[in-house]
């Protein structure tokens, strides 16, 4: 790894009372890779994402994005630097159609929204971008349906489209396949692998097949600490990892 890391997490800590959700964690993601973050429930994966996206302020440590310290940057400024997240629990705009959801996301990139008169529904630039992105996640035929009426898997893909349309440099994916059936999961794995050349990703995922199919590197998180980082095949054979995580899965 000779490249400069796109994301560099240095000695990050966050405690909730006595629980150390993030414990002196250091981690880097280099430009162009898909970096998977795995670990048992409660290992602090989502807490880490929440700190990277700015929703939770770390107690100590630093987060560098493309060399810039963003530890204290406001939430809404981060997507404009190219740091975009998706949510584990689907977070969409239920009353809007699928297309409107993505168009609203695209609008965020298209300058400020203090535009009071031109009807946004007839905004071709936004609608075309949104329609293309919807098509890329296989939702072209659902464009005019209200988001709340979509199936769970479709909502998950809509969630992904809303993140993608922001043209992220680093995409923080919090369990993008959560609750999906095997076919839909495979579809999303395909979508993500076609993106691997254009988007760097930090991927939290429980589906080990997906992780090993996609990841260039894997970091294993246990009790808020990174106990191992390496190539998927090395992680698979790492004894500490097997004991802490994979073994536990097998035993279950």
């Amino acid at each position, binding site marked *: 790894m000779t490249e400069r890391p796109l994301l560099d997490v240095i000695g990050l800590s966050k405690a909730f009372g006595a629980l150390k959700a993030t414990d002196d964690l250091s981690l880097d993601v280099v430009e162009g890779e898909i970096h998977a973050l795995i670990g048992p429930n409660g290992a602090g994966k989502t807490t880490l994402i929440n700190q990277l996206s700015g929703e939770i302020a770390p107690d100590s440590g630093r987060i560098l994005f493309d060399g810039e310290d963003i530890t204290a940057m406001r939430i809404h400024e*981060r997507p404009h630097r190219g740091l975009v997240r998706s*949510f584990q629990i689907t*977070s969409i*705009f239920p009353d809007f159609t699928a297309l409107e959801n993505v168009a609203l*996301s695209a609008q965020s990139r298209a300058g400020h*929204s203090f535009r*009071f*008169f*031109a009807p946004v529904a007839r905004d071709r630039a936004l609608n075309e971008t949104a329609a293309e992105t919807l098509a890329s996640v296989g939702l072209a035929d659902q464009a005019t349906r209200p988001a709340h009426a979509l199936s769970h898997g479709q909502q998950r893909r809509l969630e992904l489209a809303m993140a993608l349309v922001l043209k992220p440099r680093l995409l923080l994916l919090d369990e993008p396949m959560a609750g999906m059936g095997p076919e839909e999961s495979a579809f999303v794995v395909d979508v993500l692998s076609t993106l691997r050349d254009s988007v760097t990703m930090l991927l939290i995922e429980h589906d080990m097949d997906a992780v090993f199919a996609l990841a260039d590197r894997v970091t294993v998180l246990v009790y808020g600490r990174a106990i191992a980082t390496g190539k998927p095949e090395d992680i698979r054979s790492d004894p500490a990892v097997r004991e802490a995580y994979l073994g536990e899965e097998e035993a279950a």
Partner: protein
Amino acid sequence: MPKSYEKPFLVIGLVFLMAFPYLAEAMGNAYFTSTVSRILIFAIAAISLDLILGYGGMVSFGHAAYLGVGAYVIAILSFHFYDGSALFGLPGTEFAPIVWPLGVLLSAVAALILGALCLRTSGIYFIMITLAFAQMLFFFFVSLQRYGGDDGLFMFAGRSHMPFIDLDNDRTFYFVCLAFLVGFFLLCRAIVASRFGRVLQGIRQNERRMAMLGYPVYRYKLAAFVIAGAGAGLAGVLLANHTRFVSPDILAWTKSGDIMIMVILGGIGTLTGPILGAATFLMLEEYLPVIFGDLSMPLLKDHWRIVFGPMLILIVLFARRGLYGLLFRKENGDD
């Protein structure tokens, strides 16, 4: 009827409202014109609240404050004009092209200041703090002894003076109110359909996600709050002129409640609904006692609210979008 009938319905409604003063005069009830003027004015206030309540999800329980600021600007400047005294070294005036924009502007400024503070909270705290600030303004105007304190202030100089337009003529004044209602309604319709409007509705549905998409949510909410405050200020300007009298009652918390009931009764998040809500609310308020009087039911005549209250509750319970929801159903079964 289907939702696509909303536009024809509005056009017919407008035609009716344009003919109304002549109909009223023909029937020998010219004073109805003044009653309906009042409805038109409150419709403006209700639409402005709907913009932040229905579209932005901001439950402002102090909306009458901005109504009050607009009204008091008119009344206080009129007082100094009549009195010949100065205010901050400037003479009072009745000149509408000056005082009306000033009333709207100061309401917007009040909304900017109070909104900047209130919007740092959300949920029940937001409701309470908007109410608290409105009460603060209420007691501020109560304390202004020079301007009548809680007795209020009569505009002895009459309505504002507008070049070429005689506002003291009730029919003319009615048309001015109607023009402002139509203008403000169309403005708000454009706003909710614009990029800004979509952001506002996004914030109502999922504020956290909006921030994550890169929207500085607070700024957009504040902008909407100021627009709504200016709209209420416009209604206040017209209301002061309508009654030629202003008292702190205009910004009592019950008035904020009335405006909110108009919005909910008419249909939240519809803009058309608040007009229906204002009309229904004010008509019931005015005529329920009369009806019970005619039916020789003196107890209900005095305590008409006993009937009024449950009626409102029933409409809110059984019509999801109030009167608007009863009139217009959604086209496609979704939602």
